């Protein structure tokens, strides 16, 4: 203890050094990376009933037996707009397959804004409103776009946060179809 300042400096150096290591390890990782997987994966899909823009009623029960991709989106959200081409391509690929359903749910948007946008963009898959955000809450969505894959047996088997590519969507579908 001849020079307390030296000991103090050493202690601080150790603390600062470890903090620097932590910061350095985090600087390269994407803050979103760890959030990619939804907590819902592996669980039964929450029960829901939605009314699509064209008056259809879809529910978790009526969709049982099909592989379903539920896509939460908004017309105003730019990442959703970036995702749109992939969704269109995916929808076109599976247009003739009744066992595959792509369902778009408005996360934080009005039908008044989304319907004209969908028409202008020529969106072919069913779109539904989620008044009071109940469904979005049940799924535990954290933003938009976010896509969930549901197996024919009603199990959530995968999720994708942020704009998905066609490949992502195909992977999700494959996961849904490979489950009973």
């Amino acid at each position, binding site marked *: 203890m001849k020079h307390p300042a030296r000991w103090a400096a050493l202690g601080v150096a150790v603390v600062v050094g470890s903090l620097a290591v932590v910061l350095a390890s985090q600087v390269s990782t994407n803050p979103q990376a760890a*959030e990619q997987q939804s*907590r*819902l994966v592996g669980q039964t899909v929450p029960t829901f009933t939605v009314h699509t823009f064209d008056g259809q009623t879809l529910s978790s029960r009526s969709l049982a037996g099909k592989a379903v991709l539920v896509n939460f989106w908004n017309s105003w959200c730019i990442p959703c707009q970036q995702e749109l081409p992939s969704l269109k391509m995916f929808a076109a690929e599976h247009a003739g397959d009744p066992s595959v359903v792509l369902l778009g749910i408005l*996360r*934080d948007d009005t039908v008044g804004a989304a319907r004209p946008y969908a028409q202008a963009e020529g969106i072919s898959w069913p779109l539904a409103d989620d008044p*009071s*955000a*109940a469904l*979005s*809450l049940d799924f*535990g*969505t*954290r*933003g938009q776009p976010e896509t969930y894959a549901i197996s024919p047996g009603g199990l959530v088997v995968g999720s994708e946060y942020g704009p998905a590519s066609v490949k992502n969507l195909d992977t999700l579908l494959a996961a849904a179809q490979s489950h009973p």
Partner: protein
Amino acid sequence: MTRRRVLVWGGLAVLVVGTLAWAAWPSSGATTPASRASELATELRCPDCEALSVADSDSTSAEAIRADLLRRTKAGESDAEIRQVYIDRYGESILLKPTSNGLGLIVWVLPVVALALAAVGLALAFAKWRRQPRLEATDADEALVQRARAG
């Protein structure tokens, strides 16, 4: 004189302790589902936001969570149950204050320990200084002070 001193300081002590006791007296009535829901809303992070709580945010998801919290408290679910529902759904990052078990303990205990240690260190230093006799300055000390002042 001494009696007056006791009177003025004692009066102050009574005033302060009395008002603090009054202030700390539990006055509010039993908790209602609505008050519990709004309390919980301050503890949960709005999933769409960076640092805002569900209580502070106007986003649709925050609104939906507020409604859900009210529904759950009215249904008689306990605070711990409701927190668990949200942890299961969004992960622990939905809580704005970390739980006091596991890793979260660090953030609660470390500052308290550090401040307590520093306070003890300060007290020890004072005790040491008190024991030290008041030294007469030697020539070497004077020289040191001169050097120090000269910068």
